């Protein structure tokens, strides 16, 4: 069954406290190549049947209204993934 993947990231200008904690932990494990981490969210919306333009539009709408908060987050990707 096809899924629609929605990726949400904290806005670039907003400090991401979780990402900051992760970047602090990486070198303690020997991962020294990374200077910054930002943590986002991935949603997978399963669709029964074909993903029409209308369904994709619904997913984009849901991404903007419920899955993300436009004050602090950006929807960076909405795409269909065939299972």
């Amino acid at each position, binding site marked *: 069954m096809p899924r629609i993947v929605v990726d949400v990231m904290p806005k670039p200008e907003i*400090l991401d*406290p*979780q990402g900051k904690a992760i970047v602090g932990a990486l070198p303690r494990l020997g991962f020294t190549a990374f200077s910054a981490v930002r943590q986002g969210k991935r949603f997978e919306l399963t669709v029964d049947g074909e993903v029409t333009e209308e369904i994709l539009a619904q997913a984009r709408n849901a991404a903007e209204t419920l899955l993300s908060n436009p*004050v602090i987050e950006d929807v960076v990707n909405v795409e269909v993934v065939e299972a």
Partner: protein
Amino acid sequence: MTELPLIGEAVAVAAHGSDLRQLNGAKIGVVTFPGTLDDRDAVRAVRLAGATPVALWHADTTLGDVDAVVIPGGFSYGDYLRAGAISRFAPLMSKIIDAANSEARLPVLGICNGFQILTESHLLPGSMIKNDHLKFMCRDQVLRVENNTTDWTRDYAAGQEITVPLKNQDGQYIADEKTLDALEAEGRVVFRYVGFNPNGSRRDIAGISNAAGNVVGLMPHPEHAVEAGFGPEEGSGTEGLGFFTSVLNKIVGDNK
């Protein structure tokens, strides 16, 4: 001393016509969502202020005849997705949003998770993100009342400092610079943290209001500082009670 019952007994006492019931007929609704923690304390604060608490359930489709609403703290829906994000779409919230924006300007107070729900509902601007130090923090917090003209702060003096408990993990208030400048210019920063910013909130903002002053949200918990002996040790320990007497006076004044 008059007994002050908890929420489970509130209705029975009201029916028996207690003295408190006669103090004022003002009804203040307190909303419970799945995962709300502080509804009982909010109910108790309403009662101690001399109003009649009305328990509201998130799935209710009517507000009844309440004169004001408190959205208390807790972890509604486990803070899943974002704090307050799912509660914002509860049936009762659309009624509260309409009533707050209506000409009647229903007074609405959001505390902690209630504040988060109000920002997710767009009744108040900005948003809360995780504390800058990433930890849950619980402490007695000094706040300065920056605006004492809102429905929920009129019993305080301008610039008055009050101590109430603070306890949260997602308490860092943020908004873009333009929004922050507008809030400051319009006097809508209602409370600021004093002495110590516990979560990295922009411009030490602890609470804000809408333009009309009927909707107020803040992260700290005034409902935990309403009864001598049970509130913060700093100050009188009851410095949160003014929120609830403020709205009561506002309601009584309107009904005159």
